[in-house]
């Protein structure tokens, strides 16, 4: 069983797919805004694992650079997201996404 003896590209991809699935699951099921954003981080990190794994097995540097940019963007997004969540808490006194629905058609 070669799959269990040496770690290859597929192992990274499986981990990344699992992480992606967990992230999407958290986004869809959780109601707390912060946990939803944590799900988004999982999705981004899944993409990062993909990029780094492909870069390692392709031999190119582009994937590593791409990964660095994704990390920076994730940090920027988290900063803005938390600011908006704090503002939401100040206005509505809750961080429950499902309870905030004042606009109806």
């Amino acid at each position: 069983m070669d799959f269990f003896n040496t770690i290859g590209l597929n192992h990274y991809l499986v981990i990344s797919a699992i992480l992606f699935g967990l992230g999407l699951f958290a986004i869809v099921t959780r109601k707390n805004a912060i946990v939803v954003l944590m799900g988004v981080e999982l999705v981004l990190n899944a993409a990062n694992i993909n990029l780094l794994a492909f870069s390692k097995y392709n031999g190119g540097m582009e994937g590593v650079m791409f990964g660095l940019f994704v990390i920076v963007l994730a940090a920027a997004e988290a900063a803005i997201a938390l600011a908006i969540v704090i503002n939401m808490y100040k206005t509505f006194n809750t961080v429950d996404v499902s309870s905030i629905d004042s606009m109806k058609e």
Partner: protein
Amino acid sequence: MYELPSGAEIQNIVTVLKSSAAYYIPEIYLSVLFLVLILADLIFGPKKHHLLSVTSLIGLVGSLWFIWQQHAIVGQEIFFGMYVVDEFAIFFKYFFVLSGILTVLLSMSSDELNSRVSGLGEYYVLVVGMVIGMVMMASSTDLVMILVSMELVSLAAYVLTGYLKREKRSTEASLKYLVYGAVSSGLMIYGFSILYGLTGETNISEISSVLLSRGYDPVTLMIASIMILAGIGYKVGVVPFHFWSPDVYEGAPIPVTAFLSVASKAAGFALLIRFFYVAVPHGAETGALTPGSEWLLLLMILSVASMIYGNVVALWQKNVKRLLAYSSIAHGGYILLGIIVMDELGTQATLFYLLSYLFMNFGAFLVAVIIANKTGSENIEDYRGLGRRMPLAGAAMTVFLISLVGLPPTVGFIGKLMIFSALLAKGSVFVWLALVGILTSVISLYYYMLIPLNMYLRESKQLLPDTIKTGFLPQLVTACLMLLTLYFGIFFTPLSDFAHFAVTLFGNQLY
């Protein structure tokens, strides 16, 4: 594993960066404007926001000159193929700067924004930041660059949407925009990573050539395509990635709504056109297994769904901003029609339609600003009897809405005519798409005309004064936009020539 670059290679990199910077002057200028605005805000304090708005207005107008200079140097790939200066990019540079200027003008007229107690410090800075991001979105030819510029637009847009932070609607809108935006950009990055894995390249024209020469697994590519389409579709606001748009459009300050509905949407379309025409390989044969045809089918479905959904749900909207949000979903569908034609005529029609949308949609939102300033409301009920009391605003709103429906003699009519004639020239299934477009336009007549109906034919329940004064600047801008909407509806040759000039795409393999 990785080797360090030698001295000669570093020298080469420096030379390329230096020579590329010469093609990057409009973006550098706008970034300097961005920094100047931040400093001006720090020095003069938040109370002097008129100074900031005038500075950003002059700065944005000035950038048009630098873009004009670029006409001489089109067709250049710069920064190691990350960025491109072509006619298509120049068109969108004009487009975004113009919409930035109109947004600043709308913001200067809006009481909702200017009455904010803590001033408007970062507001104009963020508007300029969004313009930079959108300009870069239209010109990037590399996955990394696409991602960075898209996030630049999105992050600024989240903050602008929630700018009225004491207002519940605005806060809610920014939260929804943020959650949907973060998820769709996450999906898009995952799609990019799969695409990178398939090809080992990040440049979009090289991706397409590798996919064509080396072959690929269609299922994997389909998954990547759908994920990337989720990211772009969210920016464009088409069904089924539209869930954020009604709430965000209703909650955001009106100038921001106008900016999002025109410029952010156009940036998404610019990216979509570049990605779809360049990165997705279009084989010579039109068999079922070329990825180009998969994309085509997906885009057709999205387009029909958007036209039907947007126009039908708009029928029972009570809030003008929400109504325009659904109308903008429907217009996204019409613009997609022009893209899926995939030839020169179709691209020209798309670009023309975007230009016409700029005039009519900014106009409609400007009248909404004027009326919200006076009545404090955006409900259609509260528009009753305003047509006679605000003659210019009433007449202008009617013109803009006629243009949005697509009736002559307005620019919207010419736009729809060009898109439908491009579809009819292509024949077969495209004729049915054109038919759907025409029928849904007929539906849209009803809900657009509700607004003039209330303004002119119904009397207000409250007692209103005989004439309502609306200030000089908003009136001037409204009148200009109304005249342009009518003028280009009759003498549309300059606009269509301009759109025709811009159909040249770097690395395009379609026409």
